[in-house]
């Protein structure tokens, strides 16, 4: 049974035109032979090849008597062959030209037969009827009787006719049998079950055996014709696998074996485009790796895309005091409860334990509604937010520095104090061998101390507050340069043996005529003999703030910072030569206010520290070599590393800048130590040990390890070592000067508390 494919279609069509009234009956009594002939036509319709010789076919079919469920083609042959045939002919004559559907033909056939059987009307009706329904095939023989077309039948309900035949005549409605009569008739008629009322043509149709079969098949959902095979064997007509001769006998062309030049060009173009980045490829999609099926409990809320659920903090587990009958010690006394009233609302305990006899006697929670309300407010107004906390060990953020213990020796403790000054000690200077130290103070005295014992060896009264003292760096020239007000005094310290003394006194002798000659060149500096102190007095035209010796002990520089009130806002840096008693102005134009100046430890380079920057000059070539930007508000001091490539600058805003001049003109390191920042008064670098220090107004001195490597690739290493305390702040000032001992890792500090301290390792 392979007709399922078409059966559906068939069924629909049948259902359209046929109102099968007694299909159920037909099923009940399938055995009864159909009295009427039908439908070889319908069969022939399906089987195209048999159409031409339909007549013969029908004749042959008519021979077989039995209408039972045999083969579909030759089943229903009824007795009245001749009538059938004639009818057939008439029909064909009438509606030969019309096209009609296959199934319709079946119906019309039926209707004809019925018509024949019942009232013997003219055969043209069938063709008419046919016309209304279908126009598929041209081979319909039976035309429908009624010609009203596909109009609603209720239009004719009240009419005496049901429609018109092909000739335009009204087709009269048949008289309706009364129910009793029809019942009786149906009882009598054994073939009643296969009768169907055709409303359109107003007649009863008796279904043939084949039609019943067909209906049954349709009802079963099978193909209407049993011969139909919906799944025929596939015949591959175009198969030529083992064909002996190919379609073309031509030999394989050569081009199929040669790489295509055109393609190669195209490839090259693509390659270039890819290289240029004109063509980009989509990245291959990353495939999800293996994942935990049940997810990670901890991170699951964070990973999910939707709103993360933040679990509420866990409430405290109730303790004994929450019990309905807590132990006595948990129950507060009346005084305690009263004292709660005095407390602030927030500090008050939320829950006051009470004792009840039984669980039953516990009252309802009085704040239930309020709590609910507040909880809702919390949820509404204060959504919980997950706080992202960086999980970094704070220790790991601190740069790795060597342990200060391993960088010994460095000054640690104060062992010797140099007492004697009556006012703040403003400046100190240590003699080259380290045996003596000179200090200048605001009390107008200059003193020389023995480093070893703390004894004051000598003392000069200079009258005014001393700004700066500087010991000549040569070990055999014991001359001290002291800046006092507008003067610079060169003092003979009286140390050294007779020969040295002779030399010194020669150096410190000025011929009186000298200042007159050089008036044109020298900018108003007079070299005068100072008889009182047995030295030289250099009278400047402005206050001298700093004195600094050149390493060879012949030249020294003085800095005169301009006071803001002066007309020309210029500061002056002068270089004096001791042996020739000469004074030179710097051959450069100065920008900014000079604060300090210093000489390069080995080369003829001169550093001038102005308030905002440090300028480096070559004295031989008389040009500016470098300008170091500090970005400071006000620099206060400068010190050059003995190697000459590094220098540190201290500022009045508590910062110290370490410059590596090989590296850049920007500071290599900025050190901010005192907190809150205090003025840094002086910075110092040790001549031989890798130490540097600064002193500030907070009366502390800070010692650092500052190692400069000879390897240029290695940056200087700076390690904070020690904070030296001990000075007292006096009049708002701390330590005013600090100097290293030239040979020992010791630091001298001069404080505003009139003391000089020596910090030893």
């Amino acid at each position: 049974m392979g007709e399922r494919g078409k059966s559906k279609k068939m069924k629909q069509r049948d259902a359209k035109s046929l109102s099968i009234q007694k299909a159920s009956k037909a099923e009940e009594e399938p055995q009864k032979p159909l009295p009427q002939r039908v439908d070889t036509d319908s069969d022939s319709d399906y089987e195209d090849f048999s159409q031409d010789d339909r007549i013969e076919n029908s004749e042959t079919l008519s021979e077989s008597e039995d209408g039972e469920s045999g083969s579909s083609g030759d089943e229903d042959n009824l007795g009245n062959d001749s009538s059938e045939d004639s009818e057939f002919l008439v029909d064909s004559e009438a509606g030969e030209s019309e096209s009609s559907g296959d199934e319709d033909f079946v119906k019309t056939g039926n209707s004809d037969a019925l018509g024949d059987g019942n009232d013997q009307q003219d055969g043209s009706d069938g063709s008419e009827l046919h016309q209304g329904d279908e126009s598929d095939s041209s081979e319909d023989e039976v035309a429908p009787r009624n010609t009203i077309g596909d109009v609603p039948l209720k239009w004719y309900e009240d009419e005496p006719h049901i429609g018109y035949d092909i000739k335009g005549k009204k087709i009269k409605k048949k008289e309706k049998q009364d129910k009793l009569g029809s019942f009786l008739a149906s009882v009598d008629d054994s073939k009643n079950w296969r009768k169907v009322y055709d409303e359109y043509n107003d007649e009863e149709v008796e279904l043939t055996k084949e039609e019943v079969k067909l209906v049954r098949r349709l009802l079963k959902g099978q193909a209407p014709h049993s011969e139909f095979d919906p799944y025929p064997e596939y015949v591959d007509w175009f198969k030529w696998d083992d064909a002996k001769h190919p379609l073309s006998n031509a030999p394989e062309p050569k081009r199929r074996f040669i790489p295509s030049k055109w393609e190669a060009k195209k490839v090259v173009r693509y390659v270039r485009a890819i290289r240029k980045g004109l063509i980009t490829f989509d990245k291959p999609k990353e495939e999800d790796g293996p994942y935990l099926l049940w997810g990670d409990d901890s991170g699951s809320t964070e990973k999910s895309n939707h709103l993360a659920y933040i679990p509420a903090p866990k409430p405290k587990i109730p303790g004994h005091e929450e019990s309905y009958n807590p132990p006595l010690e948990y129950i507060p006394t009346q005084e305690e409860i009263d004292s709660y009233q005095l407390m602030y609302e927030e500090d008050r305990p939320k829950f006051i334990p009470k004792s009840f006899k039984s669980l039953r006697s516990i009252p309802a929670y009085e704040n239930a509604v309020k709590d609910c309300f507040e909880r809702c407010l919390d949820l509404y107004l204060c959504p919980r937010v997950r706080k992202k906390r960086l999980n970094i060990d704070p220790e790991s953020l601190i740069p790795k520095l060597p342990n200060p213990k391993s960088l010994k020796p460095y000054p640690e403790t104060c062992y010797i104090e140099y007492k004697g000054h009556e006012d703040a000690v403003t400046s100190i200077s240590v003699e080259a061998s380290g045996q003596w130290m000179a200090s200048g103070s605001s009390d107008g005295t200059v003193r020389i101390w023995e480093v070893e014992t703390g004894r004051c060896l000598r003392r000069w009264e200079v009258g005014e507050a001393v700004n700066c003292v500087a010991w000549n760096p040569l070990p055999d020239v014991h001359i001290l340069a002291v800046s006092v007000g507008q003067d610079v005094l060169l003092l003979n310290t009286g140390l050294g043996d007779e020969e040295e003394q002779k030399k010194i006194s020669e150096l410190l002798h000025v011929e009186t005529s000298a200042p007159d000659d050089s008036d044109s060149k020298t900018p108003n500096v007079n070299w005068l003999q100072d008889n009182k102190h047995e030295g030289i007095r250099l009278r400047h035209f402005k206050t001298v703030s700093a004195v600094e010796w050149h390493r060879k002990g012949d030249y020294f520089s003085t800095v005169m910072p301009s006071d803001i009130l002066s007309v020309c806002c210029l500061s002056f840096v002068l270089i004096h030569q001791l042996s020739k008693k000469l004074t030179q102005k710097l051959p450069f134009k100065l920008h900014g206010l000079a604060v300090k100046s210093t000489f390069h430890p080995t080369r003829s380079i001169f550093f001038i520290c102005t308030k905002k920057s440090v300028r480096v000059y070559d004295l031989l070539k008389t040009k500016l070599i470098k300008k170091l930007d500090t970005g400071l508000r006000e620099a206060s001091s400068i010190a050059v590393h003995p190697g000459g490539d590094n220098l540190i600058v201290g500022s009045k805003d508590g910062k110290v800048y370490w410059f590596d001049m090989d590296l850049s003109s920007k500071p290599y390191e900025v050190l901010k130590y005192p907190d809150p920042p205090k003025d840094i008064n002086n910075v110092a670098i040790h001549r031989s040990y890798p130490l540097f220090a600064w002193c500030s107004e907070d009366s502390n001195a800070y010692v650092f390890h500052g190692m400069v490597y000879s390897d240029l690739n290695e940056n200087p290493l700076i390690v904070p070592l020690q904070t030296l305390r001990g000075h007292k702040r006096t009049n708002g000032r701390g330590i005013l000067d600090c100097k290293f001992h030239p040979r020992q890792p010791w630091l001298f500090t001069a404080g505003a508390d009139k003391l000089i301290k020596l910090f030893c390792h």
Partner: protein
Amino acid sequence: MDMDDDAEGTSRRIQVRFVTKLKPPLKVPATAIAIPANLTRFGLSSVVNSLLEATDNPDYKPEPFDFLIDGELVRMSLEEFLVVKGISVEKILEIEYTKAVAPRKEEDPSLHDDWVCAVDGSSPRFFLTGCYDGLGRVWKNAGLCTHILEGHSDAITSITIINPEGGETSTLATTSKDRTVRLWKFNPEEAIDHPVKIRAFKILRGHKASVQSVAVQTSGEMVCSGSWDCTINLWQTHFDTDGDLSIKKRKVGGQVEESQLEGEAVSTLVGHTQNVSAVAWPLRDTIYSASWDHSVRKWDVETGKDLSDIFCGKALNCLDIGGEGSALIAAGGSDPVLRIWDPRKPGTSAPVFQFSSHTSWISACKWHDNSWFHLLSASYDGKVMLWDLRTAWPLSVIESHSDKVLCADWWKGDSVISGGADSKLCISSEIPIQ
């Protein structure tokens, strides 16, 4: 015994026997007694004192004692000491006692005009001081000055006696910050009412900076001096064969004409890189020197070569050789630690002892002449401390100075003389060191 009964009856008792090297009046009977274990030095001392009192001496004066167990001084309670040292109490414990080393008497300070920065007490007949006013003084006793050494133009930094056992005339050597070493001669025996001013008979010039210290060869023929010019100079002290030396007539003070010899250095030991702050000459051909360059060096006098170095990491101020076999080196410097090295220990330059009770620089250290264990140290913190190698705590602390102590020395074996920046010379006497 009866003494134990008044002591606490509840504590543990230890069987002990007291022994001593002291002379009979201070000897206790050598019978074993049981004493409470919680006694400290004071308790032990009172036990011994009552024992002595009970034996024979009716007019006995109590005396503080120090106690040694197995060569260690007891500085805690007896019980603790035994636990720390792991000594069993089953056997009878032998405790040696000696007189406590502490000054019994403080002499009146001898006032100077300026800081006292050099003392020498190697002669029992007198002692010497050097002062910042450039004068050296000879003292017969506390407060009794016999001679004043005049001539230095700057502070005297060290002073020493060249022939301690010499007969009538004693010879001295002084060094000064005026870069000279001067030799002096005087007769200590002459009875004088008021101080006599004397002048140097020989001036040794050659140093280019302050001379810091002087030391005399054991035979007295030569002196050596260390200076700020980083050298050590050796000088002849012979004054008999002075024919080859130039004799200079010098005018001193305008009136007195005096003959002063001038000498030149025999040889110079070069090697230190900084101030040579102390020298010592314990053997005929070995000189030790301490310097601010953090080293102690041993020199061979004949060759002038540097034999060995000890580095200590601190600038050194003082040095003395003594102790066991006169071989231990004691030195102190720019930190509060007194260090003692044993140069006989091979392959190590670590100090064998370190005493660190001072609080400032150590300015002087001296071994006791006769004891292997005792030495003193003076410090800028104003204290003089007496040390025993057998304990890490100072035996006694002399706090007679009100400022830095610049120098200190033993005198006559039982006194400590010290000078300081308070211009005082203090003598602490009657220190019992046997």
